């Protein structure tokens, strides 16, 4: 049986949902960030599947850009986590949070 574009779309939607659940339930900044990356990659999967179904390369090019942007985000994000870990000795977002109002 051939794997259709619908299957890929459903799979990517599932990955995206898992990512959202991770963001909402996890408290460690690194794991929250990994969940966000999962959501980005769910988008990538959908792009590739659609791109193949349409026989156009637009979607694949978009994935290239998402990948590079994600790498830049990783660099910034990890740097921020490292600096905050140095001053607070934790990466738990509930412990980091002090500002209220």
């Amino acid at each position, binding site marked *: 049986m051939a794997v259709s574009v619908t299957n890929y779309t459903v799979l990517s939607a599932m990955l995206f949902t898992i990512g959202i659940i991770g963001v909402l339930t996890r408290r460690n900044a690194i794991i929250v960030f990994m969940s966000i990356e999962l959501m980005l990659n769910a988008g990538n999967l959908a792009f590739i599947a659609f791109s193949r179904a349409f026989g156009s390369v637009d979607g694949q090019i978009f994935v290239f850009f998402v990948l*590079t942007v994600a790498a830049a985000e990783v660099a910034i994000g*990890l740097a921020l986590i490292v600096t905050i870990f140095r001053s607070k000795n934790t990466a738990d977002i509930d412990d980091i949070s002090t500002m209220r109002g």
Partner: protein
Amino acid sequence: MLQSYVPILILLVLATGFALISILLATFIGPRHPNTRKLSPYESGMTPIGPAMRRYPVRFYLVAVLFILFDIEIIFFFPWALIFRQLGFFGLVEIMVFILILLVGYAYVWKKGALDWE
């Protein structure tokens, strides 16, 4: 269609079988004389001096991130490489500009001392 996968299946069975048989044979007929030195993690290496899960210098992280950043930019060479003959001189100039911008980033990283280990 499926027949073309048969050689792969055979290879898979052979490889798994060979690994399994070697391990089983060694377990049953190999001699065993356990002592403390033999049971240490690295029998002929140095004795471990601490837990493996300790923190390591943030320098590693810096190098890794710089690697990822420059590495991922290479992705944009692939589409260009596929059709660089059709793009001709224009494509060459464009990719040179791209590399030049990356080089500015590299010079910046270098001059700022992010590559110095000490």
